[in-house]
Each structure stands twice: as structure tokens, then as C-alpha cells.
């Protein structure tokens, strides 16, 4: 028996205590494949690479059985708030 969506959810929940977690099974018949969206306070002050590493670490024991993992979102609770993003300066000259 391979890795289930519930296994993935449980592993991330115990490692990152997310305030929001969406795990989507995207396996198209070629094995366990998941898309993951996580919102966690533990991402505070961490760069994207570091955040993805934290998710990968949480899944490390399952990784051998997982065909593909795609981390679509790794946000802090503040970033997950639906607020207007400040526009990047438009008057910056392009090199």
C-alpha cells in the first residue's frame, strides 16, 4: 500500500501545524502524486527555498513512494490574507 493523501496531510500537519492545508491528489495513474498548499506560522522569516525544504523534510519518510510533489503555495498566515498586493514600482527603467 502506497502513500495516501491522508498520510501526506498527517505528516505536514504534525511538522508544520498549518493554519490552512490543501492536499490534492494529482496522480494520473502513474503513482502517488500530490499538489500541496500550506499556510503556516513556521514559514515566518523563511525564504521560499527554506519553506519548501521544510515541507520536503516533513515528507521525507514518504518520499521514496511518492512519484511527484508540487508545492503550489507555502505562505505565512499574514501573506495568506486576501489583501491588495503593493504594485512593484512601474517607473523603474528596464536594463
Amino acid at each position, binding site marked *: 500500500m502506497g502513500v495516501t493523501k491522508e498520510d501526506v496531510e498527517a505528516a505536514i500537519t504534525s511538522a508544520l501545524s498549518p493554519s490552512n492545508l490543501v492536499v490534492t491528489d494529482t496522480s494520473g495513474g502513474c503513482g502517488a502524486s500530490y499538489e500541496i498548499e500550506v499556510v503556516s506560522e513556521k514559514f515566518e522569516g523563511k525564504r*521560499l*527555498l527554506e519553506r*519548501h*525544504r521544510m515541507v*520536503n523534510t516533513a*515528507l*521525507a519518510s514518504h*518520499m521514496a513512494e511518492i512519484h*511527484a*510533489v*508540487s*508545492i*503550489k503555495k507555502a505562505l505565512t498566515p499574514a501573506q495568506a490574507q486576501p489583501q491588495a498586493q503593493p504594485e*512593484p514600482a512601474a517607473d523603474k527603467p528596464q*536594463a
Partner: protein
Amino acid sequence: SVRCLAALSPEMRETLDKVVGSSKVLLFMKGTKDFPQCGFSHTVVQILRSLDVPFETLDVLANEALRQGLKEYSSWPTFPQLYIDGEFFGGCDITVEAYKSGELQETLEKAMCS
């Protein structure tokens, strides 16, 4: 003889140090630039092409020892793996995200001018 594939030998580490330092932009992927063997690898190739940046690729499917060694070397469990200026940048999702935000272009520009 028995070999432990999970262990990253000192020789392999040294080799990888040289390999990742050998080009400014290096993609360890499944398949080749022209024939990617996986959608995630294909995506990153397309992004690098669209940014018109010179890059090298290495096919991890052609070398199992390289594939296993790199996972440990990068502390990253999957492929593709993008290296910029000798430093691990990320996998497919991070590259896509950084491409959208402009961070990838910035990192590449810095690397090309260094």
C-alpha cells in the same frame, strides 16, 4: 562488492563541487534540453529558454549514481534541480514562482555579470 548508493562519497562530493561550478546556469534534469523526459523538467527548460540565458543540462536518468548523490548534495529530494552560480536555486515550483515574481531574472542577471 557492495556499494551504498545513499551515501555521498567524498569523491562524488568533490566531483559535484566541480560540476556545479563549471557553468553559471546548470540544470540537473530528467532527459535532455531537447528531449525532456518529465513535465517538471520541461517547464524549467522552457523558462530558461524564454529568458534567453545560456545554460547547460545534465541528464540524471543517464546516471543513477549522479542522481542519488545529487539528492544528498542539494538536500533536495526531486528533479529538476537548478543551480545558478554554483548555488542551488530550487526545483520546479520555486523556479516557476521566482520566474513570476522576477526574482529569477534578477538572480540570473547577477550571476551573468559576476
